[in-house]
Every structure is written in structure tokens, then in C-alpha cells.
């Protein structure tokens, strides 16, 4: 049965409203009176517990290995033409300019949403181009989807391969920033500038 013509726009508005509420309507969160430039979350996301495989083939216990750090978690894939390399480039460029006191307690974790093509070697080489300290993780599509669900981002979806066999993977475009209090209060959507990271990363590191 076709939906009444008013239902679709109303549903779309309601959905958009829910998303904006979750993202704090784009209003920056505060940390000790200083505002973040990232999008504040109305409800903090707890640091998830999961174990995936790192680029050396070793199990990586996310919660244990990132405990008491600022952890920037991102879902993406190596053939991503725009969002992933831009995010990684900007974070790496900013981290190079930050004091060691700030960066030594920071982790950047990249979970591939395309494990079929992103082999451990390729993942390590690709991340190493940005910063050798970036951590690449792989898991089964089901494991990755479960983690995406736990951190409240849209599940990644692989498109149908074209005639040459290549395909794109739809994935969440935001970087989730977990702070030492084991929660994420802010996310960084695509469009976050280096100036924003320079402003926010030291603030995130101060959260206790």
C-alpha cells in the first residue's frame, strides 16, 4: 500500500531530528568551559569492548589496549576515494605538530569495512603512509557490524561490484573520539578541518 504523501516528509523530518538530537544539533560540547569544535553527542557512547586482529595477525583487545588514552576510532576502507584518506591525512598532520605529552596518550584505530580487499599488509602499508603509530584492525563483517552498532554508527554496506570487479563500501564518515573517562562525548564528521583537530585534541586529552 503506498504511503500517504505527508508520511514520507514527516518521517524524514523526524529521522533528521533524531539524528540532530543524537549529535547535539551540532552544538559544541564543553570541557571545563572550553568548547569542542566537533559535534557534541547528547548521550555519551561508552568505550566498547571487542577484540579484532591487528596488522601483525595478533589479537587486539580494544578496551585494554586503548585504556586511559584519547582514542580516535574510524571505520573505513583502503579503496575509499575521499573521506578516509582526508580524515587520516588531517589527523596525522595535526598529530605531528602536537607535543609528545599529548600524542603519547593518543591512539588512532582504523577498522576496515572491507576485509576482503584490505589485507593486513596493505592495511599496515596504507596507514603507515599517514602515521606508523596508526592501528589497523580487521574482523569478519559480522564482528565489524556489531562494533558499529555498539558505537551507534550506521552499518557499513558494500555496493554491488561493477564489471571490473571493483566496488565501493558505504560507511560512517565520522571519527569517534573516546576520552580517558572511557566515553565518547564528541564525534568529528567529514569536513572537520586540521584547525579543529588542533583545537580539540589537547582538550580531549585533558578529560579525566
Amino acid at each position, binding site marked *: 500500500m503506498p504511503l500517504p504523501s505527508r508520511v514520507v516528509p514527516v518521517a524524514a523530518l523526524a529521522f533528521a531530528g533524531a539524528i540532530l538530537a543524537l549529535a547535539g544539533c551540532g552544538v559544541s560540547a564543553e570541557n571545563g568551559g572550553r568548547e569542542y569544535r566537533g559535534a557534541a553527542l547528547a548521550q555519551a557512547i561508552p568505550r566498547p569492548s571487542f577484540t579484532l586482529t591487528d596488522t601483525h595477525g595478533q589479537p587486539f583487545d580494544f578496551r585494554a589496549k586503548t585504556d586511559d588514552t584519547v582514542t580516535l576510532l574510524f571505520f573505513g576502507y583502503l579503496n575509499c576515494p575521499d573521506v578516509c*584518506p582526508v580524515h587520516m*591525512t588531517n589527523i596525522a598532520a595535526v598529530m605531528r605538530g602536537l607535543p609528545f605529552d599529548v600524542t603519547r596518550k593518543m591512539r588512532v584505530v582504523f577498522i576496515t569495512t572491507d576485509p576482503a580487499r584490505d589485507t593486513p599488509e596493505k592495511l599496515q602499508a596504507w596507514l603507515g603512509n599517514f602515521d606508523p603509530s596508526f592501528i589497523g584492525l580487521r574482523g569478519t563483517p559480522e564482528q565489524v557490524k556489531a562494533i558499529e552498532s555498539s558505537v551507534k554508527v550506521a552499518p557499513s554496506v558494500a555496493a554491488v561490484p561493477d564489471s571490473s570487479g571493483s566496488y565501493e563500501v558505504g560507511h560512517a564518515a565520522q571519527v569517534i573520539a573516546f576520552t580517558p573517562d572511557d566515553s565518547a562525548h564528541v564525534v568529528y564528521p567529514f569536513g572537520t*578541518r*586540521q584547525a579543529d583537530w*588542533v583545537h580539540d585534541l589537547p582538550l580531549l586529552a585533558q578529560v579525566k
Partner: protein
Amino acid sequence: MNVQWWCSARGVPWRWQWQPYPGVWLAVLALGAAYARWSTPLAGTHANTTSAGRRVGGWVAVALVWMALDWPGGPLGTGYLASVHAAQFLVLAMIAPPLLLRGIDDNRVRALLDRNGVAAKIIRVVTKPLVAALAFTIVMLATHTPDAVDTLMRSQLGAFALDLAWFLSGLAFWWPVVLEVPVRVHFGPPIRMLYLFAGTQAHLYLSMWLLLGDLPKYGVYELAPRVTGLSALEDQQVAGGLLLTIGGTYVLAVISLLFFRWFAEPQPEV
């Protein structure tokens, strides 16, 4: 194929695949037609006031404008690389205008000014050295602010307006240096040299601002998928370097040329 009439930032990954830009072709055709008319000697006059070399220089300028605006330079400069954007500025505002003005026939301009129509009145006002230098400086600084670039480059109309503003302000700025009409008795070679030096100080400031910045200034280039191995900041530093070296050397060369010509002129005996 998604046809755009003018290059603008689209945020999609760069591909070395030719794209047509019909608006650019029309603009370059219009410029070429106007230049062909204005570089041809006016009927009834005995000789052209410009040389063959100067006329060829004007056609080189038309070709440079075309290269700056059409694929691949146009889309690279509007949506991907600040360095190409800087090269476009150099072509449209600094290099093409004086080459075009040198190629046009003074008699035609004189005849236009003698008719004293609307065009003549506008030309008289906008080519007054103070007005031209001020307009050139304001346009140069305003169109390089991050807000202006990030806003204008995202639409075809905005990118077109920016290119047009550079070209027109460049024409007005170089006019009093290159053309002898309208006659300005007090605007001799020493004042022209000073005018060029003073009028391009903002250019120097702009190039240093880009060269020495520790973060990318423009979101449109920072967030664009990379085309080269350069980071957004390195690309911005190349842009500043181009403005400083090519632009600075060019202005210095023109000032030197004016000086040596003036020096070679027979001086009145005291």
C-alpha cells in the same frame, strides 16, 4: 556525462578524464573576438599603434587564459590544488591583462574615449591609478580570504565571479602602466614604477601568508581528495611560493623594464 558550464569544486575524487566546460569556451571565444577587433588598426588611421610582436603577445594571453580556465587547469584550481589556483591568479590578474593591453590599438581606445559614452566614462574612472590600485588590492585580498574561497569555489557562478573579478581588476590595474590613453601627464615612468611596487605589496603579503601558514587556510583544498603526493599544507606552500617567486619576479622585471626604458630616453638638458 555531467556537464558543468564553469569549473567549480565538486568534492569528488580527481580523474584524468577530459570534461567539457562550454562556459569557458564561450568566454575565451568572446575574449578572442574582442581582442581581434581591438588589436586591428582603426579604419582611417594610417598605422597601427602597436607592433606585430605585441599583437602576438595578446594572443598568447588569450591562450593562457584558456589554459587557466579549461580542463585540467580550471577544475584542478577550483577544487583540488591551491597551487594551481595561485597559477590561475597569476595568469588572470598579472600576466594576461598587460599582454592584452599591449596588443590593442591606442587609436581605437582614443576614439572610444572621444565619444565619451558610458564605456568611456567607466574606463576613465576605473583606470585612474589610485582607483585601479585600490580596486586591485581589495579584490586580491578579498578573493583570497578563506571564507570567500570556500564559498565561491563551491558554485559555478561563484567561481566564474572570482575569475572575472581577477581579470577585470587586473585589466584596470595594468591599464595606466601599459596604455598612454587617457593621457595622464603626471603619471610618468618613475611614478609608474612606484605605482607597480605599491600596488603589488598586497601580493607580497598574500604570498607570505600562504607560505608561512602552519595550517591549511582553505577548506575546499584541505578536504579535497589528494591529486598529488603533496599534503594540503605543502600544496598551499607551493601556492605561496609561486605567488612570491613568479609574481614577484614578474613585477620586478616589469619595473626594471620601465626603468631602463626611462633611463634610455633622452633627458632634457639642464
